[in-house]
């Protein structure tokens, strides 16, 4: 799993810095606010839900709680990947409309923990793509790597929860 040493490009104690947990999707690196990470689990087969978009894989039992599992590759319309023993599910606390939900996202692997100041985040460019980018909090560059920092409340927000597919294509009938 992840390299557990906290790497930071700045002094971690500096105020105004947020810590991000990053994960890998098809060799690209993405980050989420580490304070929202509840736990990291291995992949287990979820129970599928009827008539939901393909990226909603279903629900699993996390200590008696029913938690939906979302495949990030499918969510971003990337090539699907076979789930294997190294496939990882990050449990995130998503806050919307004063409600907190716990959701699991399937990623290729967990990568690092970085401390990044708000000033070091560049606004996301116009991707000119059909993928909405309102869930990108900003871009950071670390060791020449680009990392997309995600706003999970938007990414996993009402749009995704609603039965209508948030991204252009509709749910499979």
């Amino acid at each position, binding site marked *: 799993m992840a390299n557990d040493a906290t790497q930071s490009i700045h002094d971690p104690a500096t105020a105004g810095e947020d810590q991000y947990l990053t994960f890998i999707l098809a060799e690209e690196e993405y980050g989420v606010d580490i304070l929202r990470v509840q736990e990291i689990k291995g992949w287990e087969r*979820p*129970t*599928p*839900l*009827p*008539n*939901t978009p393909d990226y909603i894989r*279903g*629900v*699993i*039992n996390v200590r*008696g*709680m*029913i*938690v*939906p599992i979302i495949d990030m590759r499918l969510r971003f319309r990337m090539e699907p990947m076979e789930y294997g023993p190294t496939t990882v599910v990050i449990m995130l606390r998503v806050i919307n409309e004063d409600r907190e*939900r*716990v*959701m699991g996202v399937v990623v290729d692997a967990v990568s690092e923990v970085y401390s990044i100041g708000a000033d070091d985040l560049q606004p996301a460019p116009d991707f000119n793509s059909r993928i909405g980018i309102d869930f990108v909090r900003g871009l950071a560059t670390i060791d020449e790597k680009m990392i997309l920092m995600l706003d999970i409340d938007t990414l996993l927000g009402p749009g995704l*929860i*609603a*039965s*209508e597919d948030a991204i252009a294509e509709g*749910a*499979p*009938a």
Partner: protein
Amino acid sequence: MSIDMAQFVDAFLEESFEGLERMETELLALDGGDPETLNTIFRCAHSIKGGAGTFGFGAISEFTHGVETLLDRMRNGEQDAAPETVNLLLRAVDILRAQLHAARDGGEADAAEVAEVRTLIEAHLGDAAPPRDPAPSDGSEEGPGDGNDDGPRGWRIHFRPYADLMRTGNDPLRMFEVLAELGRLTVHCETDRLPDSAEAFDPEDCYLAWTLELEGDATGDQIEEVFEWVEDECDLVIEPLEAAPVAPDESSAPEPGAAADTPARPETAAKGSGGSARGAESSSMRVNTGKIDALIDMVGELVITQSMLTDISEQLEEDPSQMEAQIERLRTGLAELERNTRELQESVMGIRMVPIAQVFNRFPRLVHDISGQLGKQIELTLKGEYTEIDKTVMEHLGDPLVHLVRNAVDHGIERPEARAAAGKPETGQVTLEAYHRGGNVIIEIRDDGKGMDADRILAKARDTGLVGPNQQLDRHEILQLVFEPGLSTADQVSDLSGRGVGMDVVKKNIRGLGGNVELESEPGKGSRLTIRLPLTLSIMDGQLLKVGDETFVIPLIAIVESLQTLPESVKQAFGKLPLYRLRDEYIPIIDLAALFGRAEPSPLPERALLVVAEADDQRVALRVDDLLGQQQVVIKTLETNFRKVPGTAGATILGDGQVALILDVAGIARMAAGRDTRAA
């Protein structure tokens, strides 16, 4: 207040609301001033006053004081329990309820109404009572109600505690200290009760009595407040000092400030504590101590079983040769564990169970009020108030029940003249009864009113197109039509049928709780509504079944029957909609895998397994691959972390830790009918 009172305030408010309900019930039951009932009512008011004073809800305490005084006079026989007095007290209960709500939620009770009722109470108490200061008019032991607005210049207090005053944690010294803050206090101690010999002296008894003189502008209220907690444990006489005027300007200088402060401070306190009190309100409940004790016993048993199992595992390690015997013990232990777990589960669920009286209690008042307005004579009988029901179910039951009882009173029971003409007693009977039957709670609302005319309901239903011209319905079916939206919302029908509007809403609400409602009625004899509710919302009996690779749970209560198809009974409509002919009925066959988007629709095999299920009076036949066992399942909602998923009524966790979806038969029927795959 130096300690955080918020938690006590919550308890006070909760108890006060209960006290008010009690007052209301007893007031309605008050027949000609039965002293025991009056005492009960008085005690409720007294506790509210005391608590309100303690927690700084000055307005409430002040208002209750008047109520209490009136009640005291009634119980002393100085005042009649005339209907108008009872009605006034009922209004006072309403005011108090509003005030308590305001205290909890941080609002304000309607000041004009408070003042109006207060004035009425004071008028009842007699002209001697000065308006807006009911304190000196207190007619009980506290002294003559002859206070004028100038008030006495001081008070004489005869305080003779009973022997065990100090055992209850009260300390006269501390009370005197508080009194001393109200003015100049002179204390005379009376030692006449002291025993003669040392042998007879119990150091924990209180033998002393005191006469205190308090000079200053303290009000009778303030003094009473000091003795609030010992009132029942002493002889107390508070009387105004005669003609002992102290220089008013000088000594009263700090007093008016304090007096003016009294009403002001409590109000801010009420606002301050409102927020926190409200937050906790919905999430707390009172639990019978017996239930908690039973739970503790069970946990005790569980611990014993656990240590027994540990012991077995140790023995197995030490002496594997005894394997057979130990395995036998292990089996016994596991059986014990299973029993413990089941009992524990039942008990924990039982904690959520509350007596239905909490809903029923509002009805005597409701019936009293409505029948008064309508000029009807109605006797309401409550039965089985201690039947227990899940707290959540109960919270949602209130509105539908109010509606049904209101209907019974409003439309069911006839006016006295009409009843007399029909040869019935003038007083109509409405009965509200709750009881348990086979895992359900049954609530019946019966009246001996005019009942319903099935022919007219049917005629109306045919008019509105609800029932086709050639459709034949039996009497029972016709009566159930009142729950149909098209029929019951039409105003005209409410007169025709003797039932009011909104029966469809009632049915919907009760359905929402997983229950059912049925109507029986006989013209001229009355009606009976039967509500059937599940004991709890969180556990149900389920049938496990397999569709493809997946396990689903279907509520056992929804299953009509399970069967293997007979080829000759499978019919097709439009070439692709399979129907199954079960006796005289055609039931649509639903391909669950296809409906849930799991697989392409597949043709029905020669001998398929069908589960015929019913919901909302609609039957569907679900095609399943296998029937597994039946078991109790704990219902978990998908909405906690996701949203409602059409076709499912939540999920449950199976023994192996896997999640299984619970099928919502009504939702599936809707989906199949309209291909409605979107969120409901």
